[in-house]
């Protein structure tokens, strides 16, 4: 292992494939992660609002969505899309679309739960109190409800974004042209395992570590009691 790690020739071979395989793979992973996160947020907000609505039918739809996608493996879902989407749209499905749909729908279920807990955490009495003080609906949302909800949901949302980035690697199992796929195909092709997988791990770490730090920071910030922004003005 150590001997492999210090093998200069193998690192030179790695540098050769870096621009042709690793960089495009990294960009693909980033693109899938960003678009997937967008889809997951949209689905999460829609179904999160569904599950806190008063109509039981919406609640039921949202429960079914959340439970089904949270309790089946992403691998099964992605393989299902891989096998069945071509029949539905009648043609080849680009791997990018496959990845976005896969991680987007999967993490949408998790984000929907995060949004639901965020909405449910704010007591109804706060709305009533705000109205009694003459706040309009938008003002209530802007100054009272959203600041509290955001504080609650931002740390878990960041964690979901982190997991989403890691889960894009499932695409490698359907030859998704992402970072994991290139690293694995080059590594098993040439047999330079340390040189193939270590940079791959570092590249994932490069995306995920800032997200992990952000989640930690937001968590700590959410626990602090708020202080007025302009103390002089308030006084």
């Amino acid at each position, binding site marked *: *292992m150590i001997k492999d790690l210090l093998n200069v020739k193998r690192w030179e071979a790695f540098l050769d494939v870096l621009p042709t395989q690793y960089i495009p793979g990294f960009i693909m992973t980033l693109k899938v992660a960003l678009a997937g996160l967008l889809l997951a947020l949209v689905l999460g907000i829609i179904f999160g609002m569904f599950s806190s609505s008063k109509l039981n039918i919406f609640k039921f739809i949202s429960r079914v969505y959340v*439970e*089904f996608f*949270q*309790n*089946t*493996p*992403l*691998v*099964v*879902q992605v*393989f*299902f899309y891989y*096998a*069945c989407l071509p*029949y539905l749209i009648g043609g080849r499905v680009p791997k990018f679309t496959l990845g976005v749909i896969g991680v987007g729908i999967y993490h949408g279920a998790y984000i929907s739960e995060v949004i639901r807990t965020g909405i449910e955490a704010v007591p109804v009495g706060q709305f009533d109190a705000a109205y009694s003080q003459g706040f309009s609906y938008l003002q209530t949302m802007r100054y009272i409800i959203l600041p509290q909800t955001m504080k609650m949901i931002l740390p878990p949302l960041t964690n979901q974004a*982190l997991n989403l980035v*890691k*889960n894009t*690697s*499932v695409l*490698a*199992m359907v030859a998704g042209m992402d970072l*994991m796929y290139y*690293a*694995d195909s080059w*590594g*098993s092709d040439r*047999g330079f*395992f*340390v040189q193939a*997988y270590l940079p*791959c*791990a570092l590249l*994932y*770490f490069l995306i*995920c*570590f800032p*997200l*992990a730090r952000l989640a930690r920071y937001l968590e700590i910030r959410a626990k602090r009691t708020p202080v007025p922004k302009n103390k002089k003005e308030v006084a």
Partner: protein
Amino acid sequence: MAQIQQTIFTEANFLFMMQGLLLTVLIAAVTIILSLFFGTIMAMIRHFCTGKLTILSWLSGAYIEFFRCTPNILWILWIRFTMQGNPTVKAIFAFTLFTSAVVAEIVRGGLNGIPKGQFEGAASQGFSFWQTMFYIVLPQTYKSIVPAMLSQMITVIKDTSFLKAVDIAEFMRNSSVVMGQLRTSGDIITLYAFIALVYFIICFSLSCLVRSFQQKVRSS
């Protein structure tokens, strides 16, 4: 129905898939137990090593952060080549490597929740550090992390499907082998529904368990 029985769920196919399921559950259970062991050690190192031993705490923190920020599938693929031996053991090793970092964070969260008075009380009764850990702190920690650990169990069961990529005879891989024999798209969709259903039944019952534990914690 009878037609499905002839094409997909023949006795041989069904038994083959159920053998895979057995291995899936086995891998997940062994992984969780090993991860709980190593995770507890790492969490304790990260939480209690101060002063001269800060370097150990830092090392354990680095391990946890590094493994939490890289995908599980990467370690499975890497270890497939670099280690010798039984493929199932290698898979469990890769899973434990990754999961123990996650579990360490869960245990650390539990340790954070133990009030300082518990340590002071134990010290006043003449308990040594290890006695305090073993009789007072760890039992309370484990009790409080049961829901989080069960959620992690769900994640591990779902993640065992990654092992299809390294051709270990777990449920997803065995089902894919069966799928290779199917001809019509209707059959393939039926089999996908069956796979999803099996995972769903296991994970959903676990998540119901998580919810009942959470309610118990809330009401107590």
